[in-house]
């Protein structure tokens, strides 16, 4: 079974600064997807960024980028120019690409605080 680990329960960053959230995972599969979700106080789960394991290039979405290290099974999220609206719980998630019916496996979450 796959597992996802987020070792930072809480992180904080100053507004306009850069912060990196860590995520590691364990799998024996070679083809899979990785995701970062944002959960603001509204509780809504918002997809921030996704990475296909077969792509070597790191995914980027505006101020959000990832550092995908497949051999190390590491998938960190970098938030540049942090904004107050980035404050939220962030979840790393894994989904197998072996089966179309595969499910998301989540990490424990990292609570990000943005200080003005």
């Amino acid at each position: 079974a796959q597992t996802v680990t987020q070792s930072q329960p809480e992180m904080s960053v100053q507004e306009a600064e850069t912060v990196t959230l860590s995520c590691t995972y364990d799998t024996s599969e070679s083809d899979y997807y990785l995701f970062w979700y944002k959960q603001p106080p509204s509780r809504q789960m918002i997809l921030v960024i996704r990475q296909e394991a077969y792509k070597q290039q790191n995914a980027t979405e505006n101020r959000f980028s990832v550092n995908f290290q497949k051999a190390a099974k590491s998938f960190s999220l970098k938030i540049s120019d942090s904004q107050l609206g980035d404050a939220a719980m962030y979840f790393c998630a894994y989904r197998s690409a072996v089966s179309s019916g595969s499910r998301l496996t989540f990490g424990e979450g990292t609570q990000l605080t943005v200080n003005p």
Partner: protein
Amino acid sequence: IAGITQAPTSQILAAGRRMTLRCTQDMRHNAMYWYRQDLGLGLRLIHYSNTAGTTGKGEVPDGYSVSRANTDDFPLTLASAVPSQTSVYFCASRREGMNTEAFFGQGTRLTVV
């Protein structure tokens, strides 16, 4: 508005009572899921359904049951609620296929006292 809807948004329930959390999607997604979210544990899969008429157990299925009579609805039932089932419950759905995104409902906060 297309999307996935959960009801109720919050509920306080006496231990031992039966409760059904409702989930409806209008996106015609084949797959649907129920997760529970607990602090320090993230979201854990309770049950899932890859298509109407089929269901499967996730990571933490004990004390919960589901049904999938049609594509749109995926109710989660607690037969006899216990305090350890106090949690936030999320329903999600996903269109069949490898490269598709999961959509989440707004969650149900359930407190069992």
